[in-house]
């Protein structure tokens, strides 16, 4: 896994490829196609790429209208603008359950230099509360391709959470919406994670093994619907549960896992590792990640105690 690639780049490549296979796919941007990496699609399919200008709310509702004409629109902008277009996503798309995909990039604090105003730490929470919304946060380029393909193939709204930072590309793993992947099996602790934090968890697990622990890593790429069966099974097996996400500890993956555990009556310890109810700030991506305790070494330290 020497190659690194940002999931936003993989999104752009996936669209360009899938655009040839499915002529219903159209892409909308809000003046960020250079950053959301949809430019290749725009060049190959100029008649199927629509720039809404700097008007995210209108982009999302236009996509709602286009879906009613039988198209499969992918809306692209920064995850921080999920809030800005939220009423449109809620009432325009989710309420009538229209077939629109929101692929929002630059999620989390690893946006880096642009600072807290541009680092979405709340988007998973906003999206998973909407009835009928599917929420996916792929861990690498391969999973992003599979997620984009699966999103295009299913009917209904999907939120894809994508990252700016280039991260390792893993060997391809099976991908089914709603089915988590055990990336590393283990016995005495389990790390439920998603997105680029999978890579940090792999680093953490390596350090923990050096200390004699045997932690499992479960990639919950689909946060909604969550793989409750897998969550219960690994919590019961490992007894010590950690959730690790590049998102607020309020309302995100951690709360989704907690819901499953509490209502499933699984006896285990539980700790959420994520952004502790604060906004991010400027800095280099990995520096900012470290500031919020989310690097592999810090995760290992939190777990080893």
């Amino acid at each position: 896994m020497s190659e690194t690639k940002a999931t936003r780049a993989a999104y752009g490549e996936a669209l360009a490829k899938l655009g040839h296979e499915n002529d219903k796919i159209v892409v909308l941007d809000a003046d960020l196609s250079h950053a959301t990496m949809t430019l290749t699609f725009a060049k190959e399919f100029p008649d199927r790429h629509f720039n809404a200008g700097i008007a995210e709310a209108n982009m999302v509702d236009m996509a709602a209208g286009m879906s009613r004409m039988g198209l499969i629109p992918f809306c692209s902008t920064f995850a921080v603008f999920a809030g800005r277009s939220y009423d449109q996503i809620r009432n325009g798309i989710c309420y009538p359950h229209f077939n629109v995909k929101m692929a929002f990039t630059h999620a989390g604090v690893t946006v880096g230099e642009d600072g807290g105003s541009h680092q979405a730490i709340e988007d998973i929470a906003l999206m998973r509360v909407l009835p009928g919304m599917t929420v996916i946060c792929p861990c690498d380029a391969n999973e992003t391709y599979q997620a984009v393909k699966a999103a295009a193939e299913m009917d209904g709204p999907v939120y894809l959470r994508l990252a700016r930072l280039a991260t390792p590309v893993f060997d391809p793993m099976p991908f089914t919406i709603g089915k988590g992947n055990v990336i590393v099996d283990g016995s005495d602790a389990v790390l439920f994670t998603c997105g680029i934090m999978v890579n940090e968890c792999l680093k953490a697990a390596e350090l923990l093994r050096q200390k004699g622990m045997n932690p499992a890593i479960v990639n919950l790429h689909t946060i909604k619907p969550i793989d409750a069966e897998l969550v219960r099974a690994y919590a019961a097996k490992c007894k010590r549960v950690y959730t690790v996400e590049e998102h607020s500890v309020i309302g995100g993956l951690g709360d989704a896992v907690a819901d499953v555990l509490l209502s499933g009556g699984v006896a285990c310890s539980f700790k959420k590792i994520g952004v502790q109810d604060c906004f991010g700030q400027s800095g280099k991506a990995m520096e900012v990640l470290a500031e919020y305790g989310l690097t592999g070494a810090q995760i290992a330290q939190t777990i080893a105690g």
Partner: protein
Amino acid sequence: MDTPALKNICTQVRRDIINMTANAGSGHPGGSLSAVEMLVALYFDVMNVDPKNPSDPARDRLVLSKGHAAPALYGVLGEKGYFSTEEFKNFRQLHSILQGHPDAKKCPGVDASTGSLGQGISIAVGMALGAKATKNPCHVYAICGDGELQEGLVWEASMAAAHYGLDNLTVLVDNNGLQIDGSNDEVMSLGDLNAKFTAFGYNVIELEDGNDIEAVVAALKTPPMKGKPTLLLCHTHKGKGISFMEDQVGWHGKAPNEEQRAEALKELEG
């Protein structure tokens, strides 16, 4: 359809609005009554629609952006035959297809779920854009309220409509001058709407009396200007047709009681 027949339908739809809101004990009669002529003209004389085939891909589309005027839309859809007029009594009741605001998932003939103001016009722009992209020759209509024009999204959508040259889009503005908290001018002045929409790139047609069915039909049948979206600026009266509701701000979101229902229905007998 000839004008007397259309006028009869308008009167029937006004009865439907009064009955629906009175039965429910809630709803928005004022802004429903002002929009009756637009909706009747569209569904009974202008749009290419078939109530027996509400999902026909080639159908013309209407988005009621001012979703609170749902009783007017339901009246028209029911009278047109999209569903039984027996459904009217279920307006705003549990499990009804006639939700308080139009629900595309539940009600046949409703193409977008509206009620959150500003969104309908944006969805209609998307439909018109999608129609162009799929080479679908249908025409898309949206009806906006005047108070609704205070939403920034209306102007974002309008910019896009002109940018993409959507001559398959007609936006109708129900300019009855009143909104919940008072007149438009008291709450947030709209200024010169003709000039504003013209500047945004629409071919603007201004109708001095948007409650004159003949004029509304004629305006809607005017061929679109190539490469430009059309905007029909219809000056209307809130509560039109019921003397004690006309131009009264208090009838925005208040249902008639039994006495008022009887009085209103009597007026509609002519």
